[in-house]
């Protein structure tokens, strides 16, 4: 079995006096893909931000030593009049040209001098999301945390990107925590699924826990894959 990359025990988070997460325990091993499911407002984004050290918490969050984290936030937006080119955005990561074009390839964007000269703020929402994912991939983090990364990307594009990302993660031996409010493509290749709505709803291997009864716990109706 692979080494532990992350261990979470009895995690609780309070924001402005309100309990947002209660008593969560789960773990992530190297090269694993953990999908976090839950309805809107379930605390999924808060969970990611807490794991990244952005919120205070009770309980334990133990990352393996020297774990390099990458984060794809869900609220990334660039003002259209900010003169920041795609290339300059990658310069923040000190990424070389081959690293940039490699990372862009994973998200289905062909890297060209013309594309790199484009202003980040003029890209469509889907394109911007792709570039952001590539940006996070470009310095090869050990663990990548993605918050609803497929929003704004059309269904057809999603499947292609998702498959190519999974391939990249496997090749680079990266562990991934993927937050989504819907079950779709993402479940098929997951090693583990954690469903939550403030508290844990269910947790385990997808083939064991994705059952109509369990899905009804999340979405409150009868759904099957």
């Amino acid at each position, binding site marked *: 079995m692979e080494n532990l990359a992350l261990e979470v025990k009895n995690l609780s988070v309070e924001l402005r006096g309100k309990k947002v997460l209660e008593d969560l325990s789960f773990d992530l091993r190297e090269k694993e893909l953990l999908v976090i499911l839950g309805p809107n407002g379930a605390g999924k984004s808060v969970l990611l*931000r807490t794991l*990244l050290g952005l919120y205070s918490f009770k309980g334990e969050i133990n990352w393996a030593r020297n774990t390099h984290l990458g984060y794809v*936030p869900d609220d990334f937006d660039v003002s259209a009049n900010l003169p920041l080119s795609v290339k300059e955005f990658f310069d923040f990561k000190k990424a070389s040209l081959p690293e940039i074009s490699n990372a862009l390839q994973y998200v289905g964007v062909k890297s060209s001098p013309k594309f790199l000269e484009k202003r980040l703020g003029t890209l469509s929402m889907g394109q911007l999301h792709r570039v952001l994912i590539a940006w996070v991939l470009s310095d090869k983090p050990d663990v990548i945390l993605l918050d609803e990364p497929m929003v704004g990307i059309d269904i057809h594009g999603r499947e292609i990107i998702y498959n190519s990302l999974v391939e990249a993660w496997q090749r680079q031996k990266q562990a991934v925590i993927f937050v989504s409010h819907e079950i779709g493509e993402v479940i098929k290749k997951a090693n583990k699924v954690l469903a939550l709505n403030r508290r844990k709803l269910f947790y385990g291997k997808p083939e064991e826990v994705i059952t109509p009864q369990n899905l009804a716990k999340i979405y409150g109706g009868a759904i099957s894959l």
Partner: protein
Amino acid sequence: MEVQFLYSLITGIFIGGVAGYLGSLLITKRMALVGDALGHIALPGVALALIYGFNVSLGALPALILGIILIWLFEMRTKLPMEALTGIVFTASVAIAFLFLPEEKISTALIGDISQVGPWDTLVSVILSIFTFLVLRKIFNKMILANLSEDLAKVEHIKVEKHNFIFLVCIAFVVALGIKVTGSLLMGALVITPAAAARNIANNLSQYSFGALIIGVISAVLGILLFKVFALPAGPLVILVASLIFLISLILKKK
């Protein structure tokens, strides 16, 4: 060319350049009016320097530091919006300065005067301008990333609060320097107008920030040359040249 004029020109060039560069970050961070407010907060210190005949920047700096600390303390205590507190402190500063600012010094305090800068003043301005520019350049990308997403910057191990503090100190330095050239009333324009013009025509970040620097330098050179020719005050001329460049940039702006 006479030596005195050369000192004025060199002082203007370096201060104009670093002020433009700083402005490109100020506009991005939506802090465009900070330069203006700080220019006023410095006024009591400027008044003291003019009365006792020492370097205006040296007078401005302690007044700026005091003003910034006051705003910070008021904010901790009241939780009122920052701009309201800044408004209180900067108008109070102007009021205090006018209690003891001699009438014949008013114009120097408000619109600046670099016609009399000496060799030491020039040297200090050049060194401080270069130093502030290098610090700003070092934090520039990190500030932009933190501006795009503070969470993302923190995950990239950027200490956002520390950088904001360094940035604030840089603003105080540039205002203290610039107040010599344009005075307290026109200080805001020295940081904002060149950067706004550069933003209109830039395609990327380096064109934007270095464009602002270059426009700041050009404004200073042309303004001070015009001052030499027409014997009108240099500060307003520098700002008017910058404003003219801004108008030209509007025409060049891509749709």
